[in-house]
């Protein structure tokens, strides 16, 4: 089954590469990263932080946009164009199709992130900004966040329209980065609101965990055990989402 999953992934990857949106986003990301050189010229003081801050934020933001806007079409496009009819009638379980599509986008994101990171590395090199191990740790966790976001987009796209999937996924991305603030907010509210916010806090992904920008910029260490815990959290969360998506996908009718 692994071979068949891989066939679907590679086919999906090839399909993703034809998305014009992908290239537009990639160009914007590279422009953003490049623009940090200009901004650093008009900055007084430590421009290293600025370049790292803008660079990492761009990789994260544009990665997420690709994950969402390509991710929401992964399944719905196959259903709309009826290409799914020829796949589901083949001797493969439905979850294999779903996993294949997921990993197809993960491969796409890997290629895109590589291009963006390469762009940032060139800027860092040109501007003489030291490149640390922490920088690569941070990139690793950004990629893990993209894997979680892709799983969220895929889950929504198994049961709702592309537009709604995009809105929901974007919403989860925003709330996921604010869930720490939410918990703080809850402390000031009555018990019922507190209980509700706590449920939201634990159910939605805590995406701030994947954000090491502060550590990179200020040179704060992020230990191996913290790293291991965060990686486990990311994989577990994405895995659960894929499981849920598979269960929904297994039950639905393809009209």
């Amino acid at each position, binding site marked *: 089954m692994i071979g068949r999953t891989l066939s679907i992934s590679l086919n999906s990857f090839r399909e993703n590469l034809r998305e014009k949106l992908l290239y537009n986003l990639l160009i914007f990301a590279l422009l953003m990263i490049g623009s940090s050189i200009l901004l650093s010229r008009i900055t007084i003081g430590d421009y290293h932080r600025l370049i790292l801050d803008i660079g990492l934020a761009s990789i994260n933001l544009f990665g997420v946009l690709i994950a969402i806007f390509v991710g929401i079409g992964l399944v719905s496009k196959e259903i709309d164009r009826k290409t799914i009819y*020829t796949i589901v009638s083949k*001797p493969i379980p439905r979850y294999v199709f779903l996993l294949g599509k997921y990993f197809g986008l993960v491969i796409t994101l890997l290629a895109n992130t590589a291009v963006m990171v390469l762009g940032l590395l060139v800027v860092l090199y040109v501007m003489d900004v030291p490149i640390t191990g922490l920088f690569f740790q941070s990139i690793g966790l950004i990629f893990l966040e993209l894997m979680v976001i892709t799983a969220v987009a895929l889950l929504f796209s198994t049961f709702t329209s592309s537009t709604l999937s995009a809105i929901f996924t974007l919403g989860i991305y925003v709330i996921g980065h604010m869930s720490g603030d939410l918990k703080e907010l809850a402390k000031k509210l009555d018990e019922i609101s507190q209980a509700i916010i706590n449920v939201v806090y634990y159910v939605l992904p805590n995406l701030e965990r994947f954000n090491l920008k502060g550590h990179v910029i200020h040179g704060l260490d992020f230990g191996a055990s913290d790293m291991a815990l965060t990686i486990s959290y990311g994989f577990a969360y994405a895995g659960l989402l894929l499981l849920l998506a598979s269960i929904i996908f297994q039950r639905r009718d393809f009209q």
Partner: protein
Amino acid sequence: MATSTIILKTEALRKTFKVGFWGRQVTALEGLDLEVRQGEVFGFLGPNGAGKTTTLKILMGLIYPTSGQAWLFGKPIGDLDSKARLGFLPESPYFYDYLTGAEFLRFYGDLFGLSGPVVNRRIGELLELVGMAHARDLQLRKFSKGMLQRIGIAQALINDPELVVLDEPMSGLDPIGRKEIRDLILRLKEAGKTIFFSSHILHDAEMLCDRVSILVKGRLVAMGRVSDLIGAASTHSVEVLVEGLGSDGLAQVKPLTEKVTVTGDRALLTLKGQQSVNEVLERIRTAKAKLISLTPQNGSLEDLFMREVREQRGEE
């Protein structure tokens, strides 16, 4: 034929859909019982919206029946082993249009877990079989509708299936394209495959099928051998075309005919049944007119189809 294995069977298959905001129930399929035997070409006929595609989608595991059961190769639908023995062409298929003919077939070969050399051999054979060897390295988006239909059939045959299910394989094709698909179906039958196809083009079905079933509004209204069904529905008539009959001659034969159509010097006489044929010929000879043609009109599948559809619609 009666003793051969049943490889596709449905029992009281029923499917309802919810439509609209309030979830109004619409019945697409109402208690369908079907049996397709090994080695036959089975036509699944019915007007648009009769539930043909719904049935095929249930059989292919794309949608789930509301109630009832279905089996392929004796196993409940959805079984992966029976799917491996099956080939399916959906209605007006859309494919991954950025793939070339060969890449497209390789993708489906991979989904069956076929080994590289086997897939390569099958790709060559199939492109040859469907007459698409020239399109091996052409992207699907450059294909014409007929070419897409043919590569779609090649896709359905990549695993050398025992049962080939085709949804409206002739629709949207020109007469040449239809003939090619018909020939292909006959070639598959010769190779021992079982073919189950849906269609609303009766002429094709009449030429191809061992047995047909007619579905109207989700219900089966007829099932059997084409010859038996047509025999039951036949309304024999004979058309006689004559030249130079003249008004006297015309007056002589008119009482024996059902309808007379005069075009210039020629007259087309429609006789009900065969009883009066000799008498009419005798009078034509007497009038010294020239007999151009005499054509017995047998009942066709279309007559049966139209009658069943009308009856069903009339009931409501």
